[in-house]
């Protein structure tokens, strides 16, 4: 009795989390446009999606921003995690707490702060401002992931490498990098997903001439349901699924 209840409750929560997503996926293959009845399988909406030029352009922009911002954030974030771990410097504690402030602060506050900052600098909101904003909000996630990994291992390894005459750069490249690689990959994938999915910060930091997918979807959804959006969402869901599975495997390997 107790055991049945246990599984029942778990199943219930999973149903809550997954029913809407699964319905969305099924409907992206449904022939009918408006009603909820199943009228047969079709790939028509996917065809329309690929022919929808503004949507495809937004997808391209989104992928470009997600790719470049996640690479920059991973580079900067790994450097930052190394700096926080290895060195004692002026402002270290304050900076590290700001990493948490960025991660915890509501997206909207970050969005408007960057909006006002960029406009005051005279930067036209567009691809560049969006890129800078995305790097900034991805950065803390990389720092935290990599930092957790570095602080997990024996720091004597560093001393050994130094004693054997390795330069600082060599030591990082040959000793620490291989060890923190899984965390770097995980941080990069997380950044990529965060950047691809972000609505709130992007809403404030991009301009009308540089449209990205989430904002495009947002404006389209406000006007009603569109079957192409179902198809597009299904593809985005699939992409997230692949990313999360890879990162999960990487992290699991990391633990063993």
């Amino acid at each position, binding site marked *: 009795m107790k055991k049945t209840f246990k599984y029942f409750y778990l199943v219930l929560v999973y149903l809550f989390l997954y029913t*809407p*997503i699964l319905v969305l996926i099924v409907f992206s293959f449904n022939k009918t446009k408006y009603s909820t009845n199943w009228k047969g399988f079709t790939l028509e909406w996917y065809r329309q999606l690929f022919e929808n030029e503004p949507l495809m352009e937004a997808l391209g922009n989104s992928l470009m921003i997600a790719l470049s911002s996640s690479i920059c954030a991973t580079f900067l974030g790994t450097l930052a995690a190394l700096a926080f771990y*290895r060195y004692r410097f002026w402002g270290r504690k304050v*900076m590290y707490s*700001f990493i948490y402030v960025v991660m915890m602060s509501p997206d909207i506050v*970050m969005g408007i702060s*960057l909006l*006002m900052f960029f406009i005051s600098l005279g930067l036209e909101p567009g691809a560049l401002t969006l890129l800078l904003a995305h790097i900034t909000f991805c950065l803390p996630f990389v720092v935290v992931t990599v930092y957790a990994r570095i602080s997990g291992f024996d720091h004597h390894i560093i001393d050994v490498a130094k004693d054997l005459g390795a330069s600082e750069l060599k030591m990082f490249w040959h000793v620490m990098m291989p060890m923190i690689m899984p965390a770097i990959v995980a941080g990069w994938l997380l950044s990529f997903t965060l950047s691809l999915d972000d609505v709130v910060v992007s809403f404030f930091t991009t301009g009308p001439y540089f449209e990205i997918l989430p904002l495009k979807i947002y404006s389209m959804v406000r006007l009603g349901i569109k079957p192409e959006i179902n198809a597009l969402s299904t593809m985005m869901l699939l992409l997230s699924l692949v990313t999360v599975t890879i990162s999960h495997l990487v992290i699991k390997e990391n633990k063993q």
Partner: protein
Amino acid sequence: MARQSSFRNFAIGSTLLWISIFVIVPYAFVIVVSFLTRDADTNIRWIFTVENYRELVSPVFLEVCKESLWLAFGTTVLSLLAAYPFAYLLTRIPENVRRFLILLMIIPFWTSSLIRTYSLIILFKANGLVNTVLLALGLTDQPVELLYTQGAVFIGLVYALLPFMIMPLYSALQKMDRRLIEAARDLGARGWQIFFKIVLPITMPGIMAGCTMVFLPALGLFYIPDLVGGARTMLIGNYIKNQYLTTGNWPVGSAASVVLTVFLCLFLYGYYLSSRNAHTKQGVEGGLV
């Protein structure tokens, strides 16, 4: 030697520079702007005023605040009530199945909450699946208006934020030393006593972390009420957004953001206190076992 210090300087320098330019300066700017005067052409005029904060005690903003806090609070409580038993049950599942279940739990955490909100609309619209089922079961004879209600906003927020509550709760419950429960049981504690005196205090940091990760976004996620609540429901996030996009009032928007950040600080302080208490408790009680 020179190369060592150049790597060091580069690592430290890039970190300091990026955080200063793109985090500290913009955040400080928000605080400054919240005390400046509005200007129709240049957005702000450099004249000091506290008028923006006075604007925030106006009935309009207080009403938004009240509704927003109510929605965020309700979302947090609902998520906590749903997530706590879930996270607990998850820790009791055999290891090999659990790995898969955890992956299933993480996937929604990683998927766009916009897309997930959109999937709710499909489910809840007038001729959506829920209404079809209700009609078919004869529970109602005409479609019920599920969208554009406060209930829809609650469901939308819980749906978007539930994974953020489950994760910290699960990790807190997972870390808990199970011997404490056995010891308490051996000493004759009842089920509810064990829960309220041991499990709850020890997992308090997880609870606080989860509540923070649900409550704060729930105040700011403007697109959820926009999409499922119609124009009727306003979060602080919607209010701030309107100050920037509709009325172009930077100072008042900034002041509202400062207020939002103050909420954040209060929550983080609560988290700090609870984790400090839990550490001392687990230390003492763990020492006794």
